[in-house]
């Protein structure tokens, strides 16, 4: 009985995952990806990992809403009224995806899989809590510091300019040989301040 639900949810996750690259609107694509994550979260709940499953659903609900906002910012076809196809190296990608699936599926089918399911009376969420704040606390704290570094990095990358002007103002890329011409693209002398007109008329 549980297997039937798991099969249905796996098929739903794969189908919605496929729809991500087939729908005509990027907002629909992000909601399709959200449904795929929800199906994986439901599989987690079915497979006696309720905390992981519910946390996945909560996290992805928020994350995909943020993603939908970014989609509206960056897409060229907001309403999905025209067919949308923005692909390159299509055959190579199909081949790589199919090869990855074939290799992983063969590994799953051919290897001897472990058979030690979670005992039904095990308090899995309490176990996870004791593990997080006990033996694995260092790992958990490392994840927290990583997220803090991510916040700092995201703010620095996405801010228009730093406290003392543009980040690359007056900078000069290093030359290919000592004292030679600077390599690569020169930073704008004007500081890149043009094109202020995009991004709404608020």
């Amino acid at each position, binding site marked *: 009985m549980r*297997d039937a639900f*798991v099969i249905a949810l*796996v*098929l739903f*996750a*794969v189908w919605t*995952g496929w729809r*991500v*690259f087939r729908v005509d609107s*990027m907002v629909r*694509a992000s909601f399709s*990806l959200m449904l*795929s*994550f929800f199906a*994986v979260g439901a*599989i*987690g709940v079915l*497979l*006696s*990992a309720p905390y*992981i*499953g519910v*946390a996945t659903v909560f996290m992805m609900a928020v*994350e995909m809403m*943020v*993603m939908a906002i*970014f989609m509206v910012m*960056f*897409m060229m076809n907001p309403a999905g009224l025209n067919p949308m196809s*923005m*692909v*390159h*190296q299509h055959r190579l*990608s*199909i081949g*790589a*995806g*199919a090869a990855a699936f074939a290799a*992983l*599926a063969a590994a*799953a089918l051919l290897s001897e*899989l*472990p*058979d*030690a*399911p*979670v*005992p039904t009376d095990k308090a899995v969420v309490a*176990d*996870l809590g004791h*593990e997080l704040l006990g033996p694995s606390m260092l790992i958990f704290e490392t994840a927290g510091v*990583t*997220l803090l570094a*991510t*916040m700092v990095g*995201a*703010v620095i*990358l*996405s801010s*228009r300019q730093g406290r003392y002007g543009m980040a690359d103002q007056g900078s000069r890329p290093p030359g290919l040989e000592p004292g030679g011409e600077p390599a690569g693209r020169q930073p704008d002398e004007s500081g890149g301040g043009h094109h202020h007109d995009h991004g709404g008329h608020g």
Partner: protein
Amino acid sequence: MTLTIVLLGAAALIGIGLYGALSQQSFVMLMMGLELMLNGALLAVVGFWSQGLAGMPEGQLLAIIVMAVMAVEMALGFALVVAVYRRRQADMTKSIGTLKE
């Protein structure tokens, strides 16, 4: 049986995600491919923990780490997209081809 089904589903999600990450031209769609691959990884981790570890809590910890990786990828990915767009008005991969050289 359950584990085989879950692993096949995870393999399909990773395959589709790889296709998307390689084929999409728009940065945000490319990131959806990456997210889909992480989705498959999360599914495989949950399946292995549920069917293969007899309830050892370290497996759930690994799933939480995968979710943290997802959050980091999402936040820094969008920050990079915004930074590249500010500097070069680019939102497609071919517009930043000069990085190749």
